[in-house]
């Protein structure tokens, strides 16, 4: 080493970039669902009211349909989808049970504060077959949450309300500080929705669930401010390599 000819210049490492953390989590969830048997389907972010609301049993009087909650476009001819469920509706119309679809992507709500954004991401799943029960739904949700949060995760199911599922539930996990954190919504597909998709609700039943990708990402990475994901700050993004 005492000879200058033996000196190696510093190694030049390729400077790699990063995938957006939200897309990383979204892809991770989709991959997990694919392993469970769900086929990924895609659909438009600009939707008709029919697919975004009517087919999902969200009645004209539902608060979500108000101008203060939903972005309407082109003289109310369409909406920016408020969830990824219309993708599942479109897919169900073209398939016959048994069917298992996952859908993921951007969704929009007219909301903007410290904890809500006008655009965020959802991953949803639906499974329709004969004899699908709430007990089956619980098993599937357990599998998903165990995959996400480890085998020791403590889970609770709480009754909730979604027009497209009945019974409906919200699922919480017990956090390290002893508080319950809401993780996902789920339920048995409302027979009205099956009927709207030309599926005989007397013969078939289904389960459905939806997760907020940002919420999972915040919990898993320890990000406290949801707005950080959309500032496109390289100091922020560069951490998720």
């Amino acid at each position: 080493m005492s000879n200058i000819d033996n000196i190696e210049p510093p190694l030049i490492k390729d400077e790699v970039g990063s995938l957006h953390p939200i897309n990383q989590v979204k892809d991770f969830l989709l991959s997990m669902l694919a392993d469970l048997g769900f086929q990924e389907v895609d659909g438009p972010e600009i939707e008709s009211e029919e697919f975004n609301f009517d087919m999902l049993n969200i009645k004209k009087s539902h608060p979500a349909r108000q101008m203060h909650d939903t972005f309407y476009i082109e003289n109310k001819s369409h909406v920016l989808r408020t969830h990824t469920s219309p993708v599942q509706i479109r897919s169900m119309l073209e398939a016959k049970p048994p069917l298992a679809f996952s859908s993921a992507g951007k969704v929009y709500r007219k909301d903007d504060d410290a904890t809500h954004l006008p655009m965020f991401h959802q991953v949803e799943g639906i499974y329709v077959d004969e004899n699908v029960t709430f007990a089956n739904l619980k098993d599937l949700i357990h599998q998903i949450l165990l995959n996400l949060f480890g085998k020791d995760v403590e889970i609770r199911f709480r009754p909730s309300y979604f027009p497209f599922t009945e019974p409906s539930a919200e699922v919480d996990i017990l956090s390290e500080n002893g508080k319950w954190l809401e993780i996902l919504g789920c339920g048995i597909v409302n027979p009205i929705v099956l009927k709207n998709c030309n599926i005989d609700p007397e013969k078939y039943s289904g389960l459905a669930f939806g997760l907020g990708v940002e919420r999972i990402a915040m919990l898993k990475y320890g990000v406290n401010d949801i707005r950080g994901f959309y500032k496109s700050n390289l100091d922020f993004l560069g951490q998720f390599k």
Partner: protein
Amino acid sequence: MKFVYQDLLNFLSEKPSKELLSEKLFQLGHEHEIVGDIFDMELTPNRGDCLSLNGLARDLNIFFGKVQPYKIYEGDILPLDFNFKNLSTDACPKISFLEIEIEGAIAAYKPYLENYFSLLGNNKVNFFTDVSNYISYELGQPTHCFDSSTMNNQLTFENKICQESFNTLLGSNINLEGKNCIFSVDNKIISLAGVMGGKSTACSSQTRKALIECAYFKPEEIIGKSIKYNLVSDAAHKFERGVDIQAQEKVLRRFVAIVKDHAAIKNFKIQTFDDTAIKQHIIPIDLERVNKILGTNIEEAQYLMILNRLGFEINNNNEVNVPSYRHDISSQNDLAEEIAKVLGYDSIKSKPIEIKNNLNESTSHIHNIKNFLVQNGFSEVINFPFAASKDNKSITIDNPLDSNKPYIRTSLKTSLLENLLSNERRQNDLIKLFEISDLYSRGDQINQEKKLGIIISGRRGHNYADFSKKLDFNYLNQILNEGIDNNIFNIEEISRADLKTKKKDKIFYTEVLIENIPPDIYKDYSFNKEKINFIKYQPVSEFPSSVRDFSFSIVDFKKYNMVIELISNFDDDILKHAYVFDFYENKKLKEIKVGVRLIFQSVLCTLSEEEIQKTLHRLLKPILDLEGVSVPGL
């Protein structure tokens, strides 16, 4: 909705502790927070029937039994000869009026009424309105009190298109527009029905004779009105969720009873205008179906007991009669949910499921493109689609969040340029970003295209070989177009002329349709979606960074590796980044020059020179203590 713990206990046979009550409310799906003795409920929008003490007690009857702690006036009541015209029975199929006159002033309120104001922090208004508000808390039915002396002519209800201003009883003047449910006298609007009454007919402390209106308004006709006119209205909250159409007489009899508790009544009369034949909602008993929905083996006796305790009656045809206040129940799935809630969702045992499906191989094309870019140092961004400027294909948002951005973007360019400039302002000198997104435009129909946008500016790299080179057309062209027939990436330079920036580095941009990128060109960059590294995120600083460059002269070559290691292994909260940006071997002088850039930044504050010097000293001292190592000029 807030309630006082003790108030609800009065409606229950058993007296559960706060903890047990809270547990059972959660089990039934009624989220809440508890502060002291106050339960702050966050009920789902389908459970308007629970927006009162009586409603919650009905739901809790299964666990704790329910009693009726309040009295209602049981005697005969004379009919009210009242001049009323309902022009919109669709919007208001049933409405009742109580006219009541008292003698003298009201002395102190009885404890149950007084506590409603003192414990829940509600403001008293006047006697009749206070009773009305209390009854809404107790029974869930909003009522509105008019001062009878202001109601001399015919009262009309109508759901009609309005275009006039209206002065609410709180004094705010609102301009009604579109279709509204209104009450009017002599063609003058006196109340925005189901939301808020008007000032001209409001009761006051002087009112001795009041007309109490008690109605069922169709939720669809009330919904959104309070937000539209920026009115805070408990009545609207309840009407939007549906009240009990059968409860009007009971509510008005309760009104009489409370007034009687506080004053001598001179006179009272009631009239109901019922324009609907109320249909009993019926669901056949189908326990097998309920068990099939839930995956349970509930016995019939238990099933019937639960329904009965929840207020459902079994009729002679062995069918379930749905109570008039349960607007949320219409199917076997609804009944299954009722049973599941009482059993407790957590007590329903999971049953393994094997999903049967024929999986199609999903395309990994987009993931390969992304992985190729990431390997080449690009970072992915995601932007909102809202845009300030439009082109002839732009789609317009009717109700944008920001009125300055009423369009949906048709290109990724503006978003990526904003991202680049914001990173430049944050002192980043190497910026390579990309975004893949669906874009929407207007044609005969709405068109959807998936596009990739890439933007670059600044240094090529932070290593000594690339530090002085700039990202340019050739760089991007070589990465993207080399080896591809027909250059598919059209690269343009974005002029800085109109940008508010002092930076001089050139900006290059390209945007391409994903479908135009041949699927096989990035096939070697396959992507493992299952692989994810859940790192522990470190908060990003919002304070400026400080840069210090040092040129180390090393004449004792044995120390070269030590210098590099001391710099690489130096750990300090404020040293954000350290890298070798220059390396030069001067064989003639037998000297190695190593240029090191140190970037300091704190997440807590803007760093002072003293703080930087302190850290620098800790870093440099052991290096400069090495013989044969120096920083000329230091």
